[in-house]
């Protein structure tokens, strides 16, 4: 690969381009914004948050100067509250439901306030929750992403001996490896991992959980552990594996040099070793989900001259959030809607992509193609290797306790919901911990935001005026 196949920009410019899109609040800004919150009762934002954080409570604690207490409220309902503060689609969740949006179209900046409080706690190294009295039971967790981390946190709080297995070098899953760098650096996710580690949870990284150790895996850089060991060593196993590899285009030329997976591209960006990120001058990204947006915006921010987002359907069909598409538009991305890739062309290195628009076929010049067309489900791993039931879309089927068809195996996060937000996975981790505890001990615990319920109506005066 040519040495110029990387960013043409100087580091100062790149750092500028990758400045946080939602910067930290100063104390004065946080105070002003926190005071703007109306302190709604049974608040719409709390209902809208998948983890049902008591948003008015944490905001009023910022306003009262009790920032540590604020962080406790957040982490109590969402162990990855610092990550979610940065990567949550707040426009369609808490801030979308905010009554100040209804009243004056200016929702409270809940995400940034959440960041203010959680940063305060993480920066001060404050241990908010600690391991519960050991209850003699152990759980193995496969995957250290949002669902795995969340489940590990609540189980540790209940006194379980928890071991989390992670194929990658670092824990945190997509929060560590998959979020656009201008939204969040991996250090945030890693500090949340450390917080869980300090609760006594063991993280076994560089270790893939497999059905059976195979010779062909010997060349992998990571270790392997057979699933049956997890089952025999633990009272329960929680699957939080996420999704599999990026889908294939299944068109000629897909193997050419210069064709990348979006997640690989994003992961390279996240090293912040800017010159090591493969980057063409004329980049085509295929797909229109939120990952595709992360790919186009970051390719552009790294200095590609032209970045094109190509999608087989129309803009209104695009799975990415509207505000994400708007962000890409502001970054100067070109859009090719209703355009289907037919073949990638070039001699060894990509030089063009042949596309079809309706009846018309033509070539587009490009020197990099990034695929962002969704991730595969690992259905065969679940059904053939673990012997648990999946649905027609390849998602692990679970009951209300997040228990799979194998009573010892529980599942949550993308592998079970098909791929949603980190905050959704976090909630499933919480529900799984509650489910595991109920199945193993017969007792029902409740954690903050496990369910959201309107307080019962107060009794009326029996002797009315």
């Amino acid at each position, binding site marked *: 690969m040519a040495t110029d196949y990387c960013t043409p920009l100087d580091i100062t410019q790149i750092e500028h381009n990758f400045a946080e899109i939602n910067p930290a609040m100063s104390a004065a800004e946080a*105070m*002003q914004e926190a*005071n*703007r919150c*109306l*302190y*709604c*009762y*049974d*608040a*719409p934002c709390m209902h809208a948050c998948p983890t049902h954080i008591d948003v008015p409570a944490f905001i009023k604690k910022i*306003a009262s100067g009790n920032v540590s207490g604020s962080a406790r409220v957040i982490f109590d309902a969402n162990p990855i509250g610092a990550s979610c503060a940065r990567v949550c689609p707040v426009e369609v969740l808490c801030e979308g439901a905010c*009554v100040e949006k*209804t*009243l004056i179209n200016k929702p409270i900046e809940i995400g940034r306030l959440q960041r203010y409080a959680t940063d305060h706690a993480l920066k001060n190294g404050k241990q908010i929750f600690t391991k519960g009295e050991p209850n003699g039971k152990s759980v193995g967790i496969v995957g250290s992403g949002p669902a795995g981390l969340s489940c590990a946190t609540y189980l540790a709080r209940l006194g379980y001996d928890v071991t989390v297995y992670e194929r990658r070098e670092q824990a945190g899953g997509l929060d560590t490896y998959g979020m656009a760098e201008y939204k969040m650096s991996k250090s945030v996710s890693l500090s949340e991992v450390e917080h869980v580690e300090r609760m006594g949870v063991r993280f076994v990284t560089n270790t893939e959980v497999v059905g059976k150790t195979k010779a062909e895996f010997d060349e992998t850089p990571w270790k392997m552990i057979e699933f049956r060991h997890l089952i025999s060593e633990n009272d329960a196993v929680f699957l939080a594996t996420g999704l599999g590899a990026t889908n294939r285009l299944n068109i000629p030329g897909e193997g050419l040099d210069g064709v990348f997976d979006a997640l690989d591209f994003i992961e390279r960006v996240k090293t912040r070793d800017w010159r090591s990120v493969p980057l063409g001058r004329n980049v085509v990204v295929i797909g229109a989900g939120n990952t595709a947006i992360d790919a186009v915006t970051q390719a552009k921010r790294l200095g590609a001259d032209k970045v094109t987002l190509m999608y087989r359907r129309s803009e209104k069909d695009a799975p990415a959030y509207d505000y994400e598409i708007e962000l890409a538009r502001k970054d100067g991305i070109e859009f090719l809607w209703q355009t289907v890739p037919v073949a990638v062309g070039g001699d060894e290195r990509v030089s063009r992509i042949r596309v079809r628009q309706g009846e018309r076929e033509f070539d587009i010049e490009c020197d990099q193609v990034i695929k962002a067309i969704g991730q595969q489900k690992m259905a065969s791993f679940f059904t053939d290797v673990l012997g648990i039931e999946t649905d027609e879309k390849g998602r692990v089927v679970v009951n209300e306790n997040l228990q799979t068809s194998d009573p010892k195996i529980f599942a949550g996060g993308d592998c079970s919901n098909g791929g949603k937000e980190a905050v959704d996975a976090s909630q499933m981790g919480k529900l799984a911990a509650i489910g595991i505890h109920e199945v193993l001990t017969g007792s029902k615990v409740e954690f903050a935001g496990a369910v959201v319920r*309107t307080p019962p*109506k*107060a*009794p*009326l*005066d029996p002797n*009315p*005026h």
Partner: protein
Amino acid sequence: MADLTNNFAGIRSPNPFWLASAPPTNMGSMIERAFDAGWGGAVWKTLGEPITNVSSRLAGLDHGPMRLIGLNNIELITDRSLEINLREMAECKKKYPNHAVIASLMVESKKEAWQEITKRTQDTGCDGFELNFGCPHGMSERGMGAAMGQVPEYTCMVTEWVKEVSNIPVIVKLTPNVTHIVPPGQAAQRGGADAVSLINTINSVMGVDVDTMIPYPNVNGMAAHGGYCGTAVKPIALNMVSELARDAEFNIPISGIGGINTWRDAVEFMLLGAGNVQVCTAVMHYGYRIVEDMIDGLNTYLDSKGFASANDIVGKSVHRMTDWGNLDLNYDVKARVNEEKCIQCNLCYVACEDGAHQSFEFVESNGKRYPRVIEKECVGCNLCYLVCPSPGAIEMVRVDAGGPTQSWRERTAGN
């Protein structure tokens, strides 16, 4: 444009907005700048025997992001020499013959002392006196200020001393640090006062620094109670102004003071009987410039209501203040939620559940959940209406038939 000119107990000014005796009226050049900004009159920072002030001397009460909804101070009367103040007062009056320049006075409780300062001061050509019987801190420990105003006999006596030698109107400034404002007001009138002004500041401790545990304002690790003023005291001032205004035996003009920030505040004071108003804290916070909108807003208001003169609104609401026992027990209002304006913050709901009469329930409507009033439980207390952040979302609706009225006094008459 309505006529804003003011004649307060014979003291004329271009408008009813005066600066109260306080730091903004500390010296001639300040008052001259205030007049240039539009203020109609100014009560000079209280003159008296030289004093020494402490540092620091102010403390503020904030509410959320709102700074200084209340202010307190432990500053004493002027720390400038009487000669300088009197010279500047004479110059100022010469330069601004149409503006009201009032001299605030406070000396020890001796007839000679009061009469001497009165005579010396009126030689400046000032338009009137204001006797400071209200200052609650520092001076009161020396038998002055509020120590005078809290004893009606003293109030009457000192007023008489000043009136004996004064040939210009005398205003007595009353302290609110009394159980009932009418006796001191009547005492001033008995002593011959031409008018009263109220309220002076209220005894207060503003708070404690929870880190150092030193109360505010910190004077080398110690604090003393001070005089409270600003937005937060307005309701107390309005009550005292209206109490005097509706007292049958009290019939001299009232200069209203206490938490006035805007023309609207001023109008409220005037409706409840104030012939003019005095402002301090708002100017200490934002500067003399605030008078521009006070004048402009008052003008707009008077025009919109069809009043030719600001004097026409003085006392217009006094007859609407009465004792509780005279209120109509048959009048009945209920809260109603306007779903179109409701933003679903549910503050009405929780306020009523925990702070009133449990008169709200949730209902589903158009796919949303709204609070709704259970009318038979609602006592018409206004709480939900008061906490609602969305204008128009809660209305208080009259539900009685408008039949005959009956007060508690009427109901219990003959018992």
